[in-house]
């Protein structure tokens, strides 16, 4: 960390403190907590892009898989639904997996008719998969559809769900990496773009898994509830002693607890990432990034290293996704938009400084703050512009309505300006 980094981090801190003073500490902490999550996502993308030059535009999918992990681990199991169709669902999924494995095996020892054999296996397997799975799914979804209709989870502590979310994302990344890495860089981009859309489609439509667009709400929390704090005499006494309203104090205390948890994880990841970057492994990664041909000539297995870093980075994104779902307390597949969960993370990495972990973290906080605050700032600007116009005129109404879309324009502008005038970002690699 040099002077520039210290100054920039202080500046970002001032932004949050300023938000706390001008708006409210509740708002500042809400933005700060999401900033922490964004910083972790940016860290994951920076591993892939900054260390290895891999272009992953499927961040949204990995984040959503992390969220799914949080639901599947922490929600209580829905025993009735499991009894109704659990066996069939598991058997169906196992058969589906077996079909794919059988097809891959058949292909690897393919003779003359290998292609046809694979096609036949896939076709037959698909129909068996659907016949076994579909009744199970219907049985599960029929159980109490208004409030459940899904298989529920394992009922384990939610903190355990975070690494599981990372593992889910890592598994998906392994499959994608196995197919698309080693081809041209654009192909990885398109493949990740596709897998992200598919993950979201699955989350939206497979109601038995996580209730689809009906959303899973009320996830267990790793921190106390506001209402419990307000009912505890000790906390109310402490709050009044500090001269604060107990209701506000409780919500701030909960947010601070989340911040504490997230900061521990961010610092841990940052330490690991820095240690990895400074190790021989990190030097090898950068050597591969800077000249693949030379690295390969030195005996480095470029594709295997790319797969490794791709899986690691995606796991970090998945972890962040699980943390975000926990913070929200709900999984809402309808809200996952690529502009917000994929491309905004890219803006964070590019603006912060690709290849520099501190840069990614800085970008995460700064860009997230900007993303949230552009709207009120834009509203002020629009108010100023339209102040002279007649009330009720069409243009005035239209301009005031359009404020919500200023965000996208601003983010695009920030990305293009940084890319053009400071392509190495605010905190360059070195």
């Amino acid at each position, binding site marked *: 960390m040099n002077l520039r980094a210290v100054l920039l981090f202080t500046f970002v801190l001032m932004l949050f403190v300023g938000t706390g003073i001008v708006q409210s500490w509740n708002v500042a902490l809400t933005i700060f907590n999401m900033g922490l999550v964004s910083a972790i996502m940016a860290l994951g993308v920076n591993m892939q892009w900054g260390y290895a030059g891999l272009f992953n535009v499927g961040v949204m999918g990995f984040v959503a898989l992390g969220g799914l992990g949080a639901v599947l681990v922490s929600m209580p199991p829905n025993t009735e639904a499991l009894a109704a169709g659990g066996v069939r669902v598991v058997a169906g999924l196992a058969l589906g997996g077996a079909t794919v494995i059988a097809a891959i095996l058949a292909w690897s020892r393919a003779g003359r008719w290998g292609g046809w054999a694979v096609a036949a296996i896939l076709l037959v397997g698909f129909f068996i998969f659907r016949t076994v799975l579909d009744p199970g799914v219907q049985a599960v979804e029929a159980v109490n559809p208004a409030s459940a209709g899904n298989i529920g989870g394992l009922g384990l502590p939610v903190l355990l769900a975070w690494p599981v979310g990372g593992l889910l994302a890592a598994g998906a990344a392994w499959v994608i990496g196995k197919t698309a890495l080693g081809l041209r860089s654009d192909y990885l981009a398109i493949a990740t773009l*596709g897998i992200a*859309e598919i993950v979201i489609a699955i989350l939206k439509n497979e109601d038995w898994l996580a209730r689809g667009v009906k959303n899973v709400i009320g996830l267990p929390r790793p921190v106390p509830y506001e209402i419990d704090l307000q009912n505890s005499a000790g906390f109310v006494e402490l709050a009044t002693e500090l001269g604060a309203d107990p209701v506000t104090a409780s919500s701030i205390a909960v947010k601070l607890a989340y911040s504490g948890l997230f900061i521990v994880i961010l610092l841990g990841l940052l330490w690991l990432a820095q240690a990895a970057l400074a190790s021989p492994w990190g030097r090898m990664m950068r050597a591969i990034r800077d000249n693949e041909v030379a690295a390969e000539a030195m005996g480095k297995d470029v594709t295997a290293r790319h797969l490794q870093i791709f899986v690691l980075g995606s796991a970090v994104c998945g972890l962040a996704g699980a943390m975000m779902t926990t913070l929200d307390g709900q999984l809402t597949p309808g809200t996952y938009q690529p502009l917000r969960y994929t491309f905004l993370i890219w803006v964070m990495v590019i603006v912060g400084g690709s290849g520099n972990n501190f840069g990614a973290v800085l970008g995460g906080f700064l860009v997230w703050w900007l993303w949230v605050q552009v709207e009120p700032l834009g509203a002020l600007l629009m108010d100023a512009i339209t102040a002279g116009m007649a009330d009720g005129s069409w243009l005035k109404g239209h301009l005031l309505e359009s404020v919500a*879309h200023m965000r*996208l324009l601003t983010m695009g502008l920030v990305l293009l300006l940084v890319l053009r005038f400071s392509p190495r970002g605010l905190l360059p690699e070195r």
Partner: protein
Amino acid sequence: MDILNGLVVLANFVIVPATAYGAQLALGALGVTLIYGILRFSNFAHGDTMAFGTMAVILPTWGLQALGINLGPLPTALLALPIGIGITALLLLGTDRLVYRFYRAKKAVPVIFVIASLGVMFIMNGLVRFVIGPDDQRFSDGERFLISARNFREMTGLAEGLAIRTTQVITVVVAVIVVAVLFWFLNRTRTGKSMRAYSDNEDLALLSGINPERVVMYTWLMVAALATIAGTLYGLDKSFKPFTYFQLLLPIFAAAIVGGLGNPLGAIAGGFVIAFAEVTITYPLKKVLGYFLPETLAPDGLVQLLSTDYKFAVSFVILIIVLLFRPTGLFKGKAV
């Protein structure tokens, strides 16, 4: 009779819609593939370029409709198409001047162009939402059907009807004209030849005195026309919503890659492959099979292989299969 009825059902629900959709995808993929061939990067802003172009057509269309000018049975949007293409061309040339030219001069690596195109995508997306809003817009007018299902039944006496919408016919006709003009331009004119030469071998093209900036300018003009036409046809056929256009990026890229990136003929083939696969796999084939198969074999279920919500999965799976077995695409594309 059963077989005829089955064919009509198949045509009505699969062949006609997939042909129209395929033509739209092919036009979109042609734009992507041209940019890839000449400027050598995957343009992530293409979906939003299409959205912008369509918006630039919709606004004059509304103006013309308000003035009472129309084309009779044809949609007024066709009249507004040149205006939309002009506006989009100005935007694309401006973007090239402000954004891409700098990186071209620096000879930046392709991925930097891609990231710049992400920034352009954000701005265009914001611009479209800013001007016309994020909601659904309808702008088609004129005759709705060329043949309606009822007329068809009366004409032929079959039990099943075949409806052909005007927009579907227009889509195919316009696409054929555009593709014919494009190929004539690329193969017969001096500029088209210089574009192909530049795409094949940049250094040789420069040595033989081809002006790269001119080639790039023509590329953007053609991309503007292709994107605007593709977007407008899609909007006429379905409806205009900025986010849907952004999501079209995936099937369009899939089409371009399946056909072979940088190969115009491949882009067209890829568009139809993706469209037919998507529609066939997500359409419940029960009725069709019921006509074709003997009664004892008629299926119980809907025989819908995947629900329509998974149409992205179809383009994706085809993409993966092609990437695994023929990384350069069906027609030989560039492998950089």
